[in-house]
């Protein structure tokens, strides 16, 4: 073997490089990959304004970054992310296995129950938790006469608890989608081959669902990083609160710099996740959905249900009870006549959330398909890139988009399309994650067979791939819909003049005004709409 034989000419080398970058997928695949990359770039482009603004700071930026206060905030934020993500994985995977594979009664009911906390904005949960558990809260009236006192809900522990309660459904939903697409015959085979139940889970199920778990965990981590309300209520100073205080204190450059640091933390989290998510060695591919695995729980059948029941009580029943208390007793705050609730706010919320979900699916489809099907670096990069927007706090995105639209495309400033664009930037990774995960589980041989049997590419996609990834698409759409319904800061900054309130901006408005009682109805409406959509979608996901 001489070197001359192996050494490619420069043209070949170039084409090899090109192939490694965009993959070796033929012209259609390559153009899809390029489309995915362009879409992802377009989503994060407005954020480049942050870098432009931070560059104005010059050397001051270095000082600010290394300040002790900044470092402390960084450490605290990362610790909160780690704790919440870990706890959410335990809770989410446990409940997904229980509801998909466990032989429990009323499975659909429990599934909806487990997913429902996602419908509650975590800041409302935090607010309710403080009202219930805080000093002189609703529950202390119950416990005081018995001589019990409430442990403090404020602080790191309280924030971690509340965030876990409202974010674990991400892990639950993505894991569930993976478990549903899991081929039961594989687990049966393992069991036949004398694997214990645990061993079968570890060796067959776990590698299959790991990308799903990782996708969910990533969303939890990024949500925690970007959430403002919960840490603020719980008095934990993290990045978002620090940024907000500096933005409202007219220290925009510093706020922008901190936002860039936040993006950097995101990049690290993404890198960590991509190591787990991409590691599919040993994952057995599914040959289509052949029914779910059954897990006999025996006498643990009913005690196991205490977990989702307890979580549901804490995450949904408690806040709803608090809202109903406010509704019937007026709530804290004082009464005035103004700011009456209108049902059009609910319409507005649903309208923008539907638009955001639809747009996100369209954007996510090429990104997720290429990321799952192609081994090109560009495709994976496009996938990763979409996640950046998710970790950017709404207020930061709002600032960037105001600046971007005013200076580059004034025509879209404060229009509905820009608002929807903001939602897509923020929330599309949820759709990308769940769609990629289900696409990865589609056996390539099925699509190949379809192509060999004469179906067109599009026909194959429609009749083979799409039905197989449908649960992932539905989950993705649901996640975008729900999070858009709950979004506040970007909505406040970007909603068109005359658009009116959404449920959440109205809740913000009355809360700011001190009229907590008036937050009860929209909060309940928000939970009901979200719960309904979730039930519909979860039902669609089951076969």
């Amino acid at each position, binding site marked *: 073997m001489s070197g001359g034989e192996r050494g490619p000419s420069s043209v070949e080398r170039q084409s090899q490089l090109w192939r490694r970058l965009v993959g070796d997928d033929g012209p259609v695949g390559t153009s899809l990959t390029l489309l995915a990359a362009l879409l992802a770039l377009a989503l994060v482009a407005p954020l480049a304004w942050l870098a432009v603004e931070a560059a104005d700071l010059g050397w001051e930026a270095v000082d600010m970054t290394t300040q002790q206060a900044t470092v402390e905030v960084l450490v605290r934020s990362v610790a909160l992310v780690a704790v919440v993500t870990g706890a959410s994985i335990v809770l989410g995977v446990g409940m997904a296995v229980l509801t998909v594979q466990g032989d429990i009664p009323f499975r659909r009911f429990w599934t909806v129950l487990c997913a429902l906390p996602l419908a509650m904005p975590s800041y409302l949960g935090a607010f309710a938790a403080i009202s219930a558990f805080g000093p*002189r809260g609703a529950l202390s009236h119950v416990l005081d006469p018995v001589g019990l006192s409430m442990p403090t809900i404020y602080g790191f522990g309280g924030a971690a608890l509340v965030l876990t309660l409202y974010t674990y459904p991400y892990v639950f939903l993505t894991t569930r989608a993976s478990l549903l697409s899991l081929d039961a015959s594989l687990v049966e085979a393992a069991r036949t081959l004398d694997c214990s139940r645990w061993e079968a889970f570890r060796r067959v199920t776990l590698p299959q669902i790991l990308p799903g778990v990782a996708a969910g965990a990533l969303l939890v981590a990024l949500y925690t990083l970007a959430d403002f309300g919960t840490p603020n209520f719980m*008095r934990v100073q993290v990045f978002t609160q620090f940024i907000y205080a500096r933005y409202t204190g007219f220290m925009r450059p510093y706020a922008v710099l901190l936002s860039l640091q936040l993006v950097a933390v995101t990049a690290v989290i993404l890198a960590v996740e991509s190591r787990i998510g991409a590691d599919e060695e040993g994952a057995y591919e599914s040959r289509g959905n052949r029914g779910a695995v059954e897990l006999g729980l025996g006498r643990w059948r009913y005690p196991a249900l205490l977990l989702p029941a307890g979580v549901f009580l804490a995450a949904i029943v408690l806040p709803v009870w608090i809202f109903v208390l406010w509704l019937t007793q007026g709530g804290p705050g*004082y009464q005035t006549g103004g*700011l009456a609730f*209108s049902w059009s706010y609910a319409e507005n919320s649903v309208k923008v959330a539907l638009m955001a979900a639809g747009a996100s699916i369209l954007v996510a489809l090429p990104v997720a398909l290429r990321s799952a099907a192609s081994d090109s670096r560009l495709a994976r990069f496009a996938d990763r890139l979409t996640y950046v927007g998710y970790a950017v706090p709404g207020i930061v995105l709002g600032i960037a988009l105001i600046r971007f639209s005013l200076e580059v495309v004034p025509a879209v400033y404060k229009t509905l399309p820009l608002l929807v664009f903001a939602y897509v930037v923020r929330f599309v990774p949820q759709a990308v994650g769940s769609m990629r995960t289900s696409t990865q589980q589609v056996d390539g041989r099925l699509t190949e067979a379809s192509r060999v049997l004469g179906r067109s590419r599009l026909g194959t996609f429609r009749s083979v791939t799409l039905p197989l990834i449908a649960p992932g698409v539905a989950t993705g759409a649901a996640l975008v819909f729900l999070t858009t319904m709950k979004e506040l800061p970007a909505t*406040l*900054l970007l909603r068109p003049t*005359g658009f009116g309130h959404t449920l959440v901006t109205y809740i913000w408005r009355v809360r700011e*005004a*001190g009229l907590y009682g008036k937050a009860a109805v929209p909060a309940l409406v928000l939970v009901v709409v979200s719960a309904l959509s979730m039930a519909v979608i979860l039902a669609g996901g089951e076969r």
Partner: protein
Amino acid sequence: MTKDKRFGRRHLLKTVAAGSTAAIAGCTLSPSGGGTDTPDGSENGTDGGDGGDGSGGVPGEIPEIGAFRGSGTIVEGRPAPGGTPIRDLPDLSGSLDVYIGGGEGGIYTQFMDMLEEFYSDFSVSSNAAPSSSHAQTIVEEAQAGETRADVFWSIDASSLGYVADEGAYEPLSDEAIEQVPSRFTGGDNAWAGVAGRARAVPYNTNELSEDDIPNSVMEFPETDGLQPMGWAPTYGAFKSFVTAMRLIEGDDATRSWLESMKSAGTERFPNEFVISSQVADGALYSGFANHYYAMRVKNQRDDPPIDLAFTEGDAGALVNIAGALKVQGTGKGDLVDTFVRHLLSSEAQEFFATRSFAYPMIPDVQPVGGLPTIDELSPPDIDLSELSNLGPTLELMQEAGVSG
């Protein structure tokens, strides 16, 4: 919620005695209040529909002062307000886009709804967001030549100061702001205060008497008996208070004041209404809060053991304002001037004073509930616009371990 509204309607209808036809007319004839012509439910359109019953006025007719007044024990038996009544002002006609800061019980929005009903060809489209956020948006819009608002109605002087400093305003007419003490207006007529709020010390009257509260806020750390105390460092008004202290006493004194108050055990709360409620409950003996929170507690409960003390000439006696500013490039300058005159009318000032317990900005209207008049307070001699310089304040609070 529906119950509240109904109560409000009935109560107001009784007060105004406007009769059923007037109420129906207010609901259906109001140009923006019907709800059908603004199906997207813009804030003004929808609220206008509800407010139609609230004011009970026929379009074009300005109701008696009782319609503007709030209800409750501390509001009863007030004298008629002085100042310029709305009927003596030029009519409002046309449409205004208002960027309005959140907060203040939503009563500003409610007042604009009432104006829409008095003037059949006047409409307001309001957009609510945090004041400081609006301020920065306005400056950006002005720089890009894409102004979207005619009026900036901020709940905080520092946001007005920011817009003024960046030159994104047009001066208000002398006529519009002539009644407002110069302390509560911006230089070059950049803005005018429409409602004031004083920093105060709510205290529990069972535990403390007024003499127990020092006249100087700087003496609080060394004064025994005030604890347990509460403060809300994340609240904008508290940060303004610290900024004022910084401007008056210097950074070092302010930092050590914060540190001493913290080590004395001052408890952190998310907002100042909670502090005032807990003072009335006796869970706290005293606290730092805006004056109106204690008034809300008083108006809600039956003679609660809470009263207000005011310090003298220092940051503890800071009087901040909600105010209005004419946005650069509005093109509706005269309408904005007339609008601001309406906000400073007898009716508006009575409305703000009796519903949000704000300090009136014209001397001829009295504050509620035996509060000292704005002349009797001795606020510090600082330029309110300087309160926008929050950066050093946040650093300092951070260093003192009282993060905002």
